[in-house]
């Protein structure tokens, strides 16, 4: 790389800005910010980013530009995250359990600890979904069927080694049943298979219940408390199964991003998450909000990693 006068001047200006930034946090952001989603457009990561977009604009006065880098179930994007400049102007969506399971099973070009998540802002809680006219009225009906017919209970879900798949493994273990998990390409395809009676039930998310309304029935949701949108659907815990979880979504920055900027990003996402209008939009979409800011990141990640790796080992996905 050649050092032209412009880059040197630019560098000096950057230093001056950084010095100013240390004094007051107001200097950031002063231009549009790129938010990379490592999946194609239209998925739940895209939708939740799109929901954040106008609030970012409104609260911080700059555009949040969403771009996509799909491939390898997110691996293509995550393996490149640290190659971006750590100036706070490029951030990327991250997903759990993806960033724990992928590097644990194979070489995908990044490691879990090599990524720098700065906030987890929501999750789509796991849920067992059946068609509205299904013979399974309650979770117990489904368990009874599976006990009488080992392996014959078919459930669709999105992908292998995913939140859906791990939930299926964990539940089979807790309930002492053997079911057949059928992986589909994305939640949309898994729902289609369910509505078309290709499978008997689906390992899906509360978002499926929100979208499909009275065409489907959720038998249980993997949350601490019932979802505000579905007050009649019990949690797994109420029914005696220790299951809380789903697909978590957050924001990560390149590892070269300085501490202050990490903190600042964490505060910004937190501020959007605290907005009541945003909260309502998310809940209406079937999402569940969580707040894991940068300061609590290490503890949260340790706990999640332990749980996912244990489930993946039990399933034989990793050794």
């Amino acid at each position, binding site marked *: 790389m050649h050092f032209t006068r412009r880059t040197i001047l630019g560098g000096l200006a950057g230093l001056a800005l950084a010095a100013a930034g240390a004094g007051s946090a107001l200097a950031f952001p002063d231009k549009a910010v790129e938010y990379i989603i490592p999946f*194609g*457009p*239209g*998925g739940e990561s*895209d*939708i939740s980013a*799109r*929901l954040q*977009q*106008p609030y970012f604009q409104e609260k911080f006065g700059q555009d949040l530009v*969403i*771009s*996509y*880098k*799909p*491939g*390898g*179930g997110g*691996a*293509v994007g995550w*393996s490149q995250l640290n190659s971006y400049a750590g100036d706070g102007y490029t951030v990327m969506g991250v997903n759990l359990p993806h960033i724990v399971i992928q590097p644990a*099973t*194979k*070489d*995908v*070009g990044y490691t879990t600890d090599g990524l720098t998540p700065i906030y987890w802002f929501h999750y789509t809680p796991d849920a067992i979904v059946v068609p509205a006219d299904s013979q399974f009225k309650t979770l117990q009906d489904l368990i009874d069927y599976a006990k009488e017919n080992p*392996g*014959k*209970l*078919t459930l669709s879900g999105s*992908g*292998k*080694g*995913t939140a859906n798949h791990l939930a299926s493994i964990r539940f089979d273990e807790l309930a002492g049943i053997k079911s*057949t998990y*059928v*992986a*589909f*390409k994305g939640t*949309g*395809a898994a*729902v*289609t*298979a369910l*509505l*078309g*009676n*290709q*499978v008997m039930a689906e390992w899906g998310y509360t978002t499926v219940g*929100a*979208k*499909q*309304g*009275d*065409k489907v029935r959720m038998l249980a949701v993997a949350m601490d408390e019932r979802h505000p949108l579905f007050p009649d659907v019990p949690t797994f815990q109420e029914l005696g199964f220790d299951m809380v979880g789903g697909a978590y979504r957050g924001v990560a920055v390149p590892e070269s991003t300085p501490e202050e900027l990490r903190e600042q990003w964490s505060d910004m996402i937190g501020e959007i998450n605290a907005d009541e209008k945003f909260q309502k*939009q998310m809940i*209406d*979409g079937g999402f569940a909000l969580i707040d894991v800011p940068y300061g609590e990141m290490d503890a949260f990640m340790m706990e999640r990693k332990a749980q996912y790796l244990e489930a993946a080992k039990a399933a034989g996905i990793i050794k």
Partner: protein
Amino acid sequence: MFAEHFAQALTPLNIVFALFGVAAGTIIGSIPGLTATMAVAVLVPLTFTLDPASALILLGAIYTGAIYGGAYSAILLNTPGTPSAIATTFDGYPMAKRGDGDLAVTISCLASVVGGLVGAAFLLTLSPPLSEVALAFGPVEYFWLAIFGLSLISALSAGALAKGLMGAALGLLLSCIGVAEISADVRLTFGSQTMIGGIEVVSALIGLYCIPVLIDLVATPDRHLKVETEARGFRLAEALRLVWREKVNLIRSSVIGTVVGILPGAGGSVAGLVSYSEARRTAKPGQEYGKGEPGGIMATESANNATVGGGFIPTLVLGIPGTPPDAVILGALLVQGIRTGPQLFEAQGSIVYTFIAGLFLATALMLPVGLLIGRYAYKTIVTLPKALLVPSVAFMTIIGSYAIRNSVSDVMIMIVLGTLGWVLSRAGIAASPIVLGIILGPIAEQGFVQAWTIGSATGDLWGMFFGRPISLGIIAFTLVSLFYPLMKGRFARWRMRHAD
């Protein structure tokens, strides 16, 4: 009731949106690599501040325009602008080569309008029952549908079946590279990080179709396309006569396009290929598909635009996107606070009907807009000197393959595959079977694995694969399409012998 919503859609502002959307979509779609999905995704933030109906009209118009725009580069450069225009190259480019590019562009516009209107009409009148079609297609039906698509190879490579099969096998192999979509296995990456994401279909498309054209342009002294000295305008009357002659083909292809559009995961490329295959199978004597037969363009272009309306059927009725651009539009709707799915038609019927009206409007506007832009595109490409044409197309291929996921490695893959494609084309292996393999491979694989898993769980593998009525129908079509060219040849020989 619909008339009322139609009047609502026809506000001056909405007409401007529809006009802008169609024009923008057509231009984006005409550039190889900038797909309809991307056109819609890029423009989504523009719609946040609009009211929901206008936002939907704008997005629908962009989508419609982009699908149509893919025809220009297919006809004039032998490179599909979007994957849904693959089969447009089969007859479009030969027509352009012999100096009928203007006619081909006009025909593609007319066919796209017809297809779009048919799709929208189905969306308006038969949405709820047709959404059941989406659900009737299970894993095994997708598997057989992909096999049916692959059977088109035998038709495409008449006389050189072995070479066609070799190309398809190569395509299937290429489609396996990277993290497998549903089993999450990493395959054929040879330890290389860049291969984890696999071969991007659109970059492969650009490479395999565009690079050989560029190499040949540079290697031969001839002009790119034949130039006619006298101006012939749109050749609209001639095009209309041809369209009328092919009305059965046009309607059949539009219906095929609508139905394939309803199936989530299939999309415009499969719709175009299936209807092309049907048009070719039912060709009248004297029609030479693959050598510049206008019916081939009509089949593909009407079918791919019909997928727009068809794709919205499961999107709006079931909340399940029928095509990738539908997924983006679904997300945009959610941001607008509209919940799609079963309750949408009852709860927010007025928005839905205004949107459908907007889709009709956008499709109708495609006629003047498309003819004008098409005329301009044709003139530009025909009159542009080679020294300018080659670098500009080369530039577009790089931009296009980069833009798909902002990745330099996709550009590399595009160039490598393109060079490989040129070498293979010298050996008589065409690009289309390879692309067919790349597109249909994952659909076949996923359907097979899912059907096998479900069939083993219920202990009825045989019934799973061969006991379902829709599957049997598709299998029958596959056999006919596979052996038809063979039988036709036999029959012709038999007749010749008996004529003596």
